């Protein structure tokens, strides 16, 4: 709970304070304006580096320190000091960011503000884990804090200087795109000075941000994390070759993506090129390369610690698939339908059919009540579903208001097309999405958070309460609902409580389906289209 409280505090402070106000001001205020965001990133990166590598390399020492700290409880004095510091921080921030008349006063307030911030962080940390335990963690992890500090400085310098590589990388991408497109467009328009390329019908400008380095960064982050967590399954140093290989591949495929974008636009589908394809193709490429990376790291004998075996001789089972595949298929179908449509997702029914096909495929498994698939329901699920709906609508007022009219492409469509689309949209919301999401989040993720062998956590045992599992699974569930992440997390927590009551997945599905059906009624009857 304290962790959540501190996160909310930090998020509130970040959203409230805008460093741009201080940029260019003289003295310490100007330094904070210029470097404030970088300092915050450095603190976050240090925490991530330190905790990740401490967990990987010094787990026993960390576990002992955590156990001792847990026994000591929360320190009330430090918590009170944290609250006072945060209060002081807030008052000083309103003075500093509100504008101060003279430089000496401004510098003094800025210094006090920094001290209050540092005090809030330190007291918050000491409230959770007492100073002696922090010292023990530091002692047990050797020079890790220095390595983490060095890595943060290096990451900040690299991150900042990588921007200078954008124009250079964009130049390579530009030339590669030209090479790929020229066989298909004879009268290709090329302007290296403005980085504009295309045909008379469809022109694109390759901006520095489009250079391909974002994908390279994402791929390197994914690759390093994967190799660190599954290092025992990999052969080193050979496996390290996957990092430059993945980075190079994603950089080259960025040019293919832009070339495809130009060809799609030139073929007359400008809306698809600029709409769905532009936003989705980068993620499709990244996901495919990431999956290839993991396959190579785990299967290629030169890269992986695998024993040769005759795959035909062994038979396999996959207990995870019935729980996750419907949700995965909906996401994959959503990505495809987004990619192939322009400003309106006409292919939404693909998601419905993908889910139905998957549920039919696992039909026999879903009939096994002893495997956890208990579809019985009672009044409690729909009742909590109504509560979740009320919470959803109540929290919606905090989200920026959206359109209250039917999307123009849908309104202008023929009655048959419009009604068909709406039918599949409602069926998805009320049936397939609740089934798929409850199987994935409450049926699988909740139990997976309790044990690596999720099947060992029976649904009877699941009735045991775990705030951490509820919180984490609900926050992840909420994060998939965009700006309505908090409402999503609240709904997820309510569905978890429904499941915990009797340990039946059917109850959670009934609750979720009730909420979604009521939202659909609200959209169609009261024209609250922004809810979809």
């Amino acid at each position, binding site marked *: 709970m304290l962790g959540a409280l501190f996160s909310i505090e930090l998020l509130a402070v970040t959203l409230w304070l805008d460093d741009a106000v201080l940029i260019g001001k003289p003295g310490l205020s100007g330094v904070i304006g210029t470097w404030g965001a970088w300092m915050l990133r450095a603190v976050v990166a240090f925490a991530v580096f330190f905790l990740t590598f401490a967990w990987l390399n010094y787990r026993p020492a960390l576990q002992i320190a955590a156990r001792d700290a847990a026994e000591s409880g929360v320190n009330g004095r430090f918590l009170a000091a944290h609250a006072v510091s945060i209060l002081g921080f807030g008052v000083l921030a309103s003075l500093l960011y509100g504008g101060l008349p003279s430089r000496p006063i401004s510098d003094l307030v800025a210094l006090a503000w920094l001290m209050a911030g540092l005090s809030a962080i330190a007291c918050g940390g000491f409230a959770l884990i007492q100073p002696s335990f922090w010292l023990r963690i530091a002692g047990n992890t050797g020079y890790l804090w220095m390595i983490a500090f060095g890595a943060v400085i290096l990451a900040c310098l690299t991150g900042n200087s990588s921007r200078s590589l954008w124009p250079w990388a964009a130049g390579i991408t530009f030339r590669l795109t030209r090479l790929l497109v020229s066989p298909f467009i004879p009268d290709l328009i090329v302007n290296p000075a403005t980085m504009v390329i295309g045909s008379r019908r469809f022109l694109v400008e390759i901006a520095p941000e489009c250079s391909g380095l974002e994908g390279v960064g994402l791929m390197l982050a994914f690759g390093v994390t994967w190799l660190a967590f599954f290092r025992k399954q990999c052969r080193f140093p050979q496996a390290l070759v996957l990092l430059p290989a993945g980075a190079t591949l994603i950089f080259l495929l960025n040019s293919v993506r832009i070339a495809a974008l130009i060809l799609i636009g030139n073929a007359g589908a400008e809306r698809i090129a600029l709409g769905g394809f532009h*936003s989705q193709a980068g993620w499709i490429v990244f996901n495919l390369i990431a*999956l290839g990376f993991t396959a190579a790291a785990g299967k290629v004998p030169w890269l992986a610690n695998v024993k040769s075996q005759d795959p035909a001789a*062994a038979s*396999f*089972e996959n207990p995870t698939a019935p729980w996750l595949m419907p949700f995965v298929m909906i996401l994959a179908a959503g990505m495809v339908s987004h990619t192939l449509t322009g400003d309106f997702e006409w292919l939404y029914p693909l998601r419905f059919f993908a889910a139905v096909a998957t549920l039919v495929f696992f039909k026999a498994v879903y009939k096994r009540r002893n495997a956890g698939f208990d579809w019985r329901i009672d009044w409690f699920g729909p009742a909590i579903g109504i509560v979740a709906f009320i919470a959803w609508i109540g929290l919606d007022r905090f989200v920026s208001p959206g359109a209250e009219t039917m999307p123009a492409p849908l309104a202008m469509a023929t009655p048959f097309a419009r009604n068909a689309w709406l039918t599949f949209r409602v069926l998805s919301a009320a049936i397939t999405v609740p089934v798929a999401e409850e199987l994935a989040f409450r049926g699988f993720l909740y139990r997976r958070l309790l044990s690596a062998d999720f099947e060992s956590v029976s649904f009877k045992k699941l009735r045991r309460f775990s705030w951490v599992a509820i919180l984490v699974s609900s926050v992840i569930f909420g994060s*998939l609902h965009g700006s309505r992440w908090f409402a999503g997390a609240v709904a997820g927590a309510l569905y978890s409580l429904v499941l915990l009551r009797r340990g039946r997945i059917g109850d959670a599905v009934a609750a979720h389906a009730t909420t979604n059906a009521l939202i659909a009624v609200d959209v169609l009857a009261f024209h609250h289209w922004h809810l979809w």
Partner: protein
Amino acid sequence: MRKILAIMLLGIGSGIAALATGPLPSPEIDPASVGSALALLAGTLLVIRGRRRK
């Protein structure tokens, strides 16, 4: 263990905050799709790694 998770949660919150301070235009990797794209990747990897010998 709960405290470690609490600290991790703090880290996640800090991460969100840090990202919120410096949004960059990103046409190559669309930030609006980050949730569903990473969920798809994570889900696929979990299914693949969930396969086991009978």
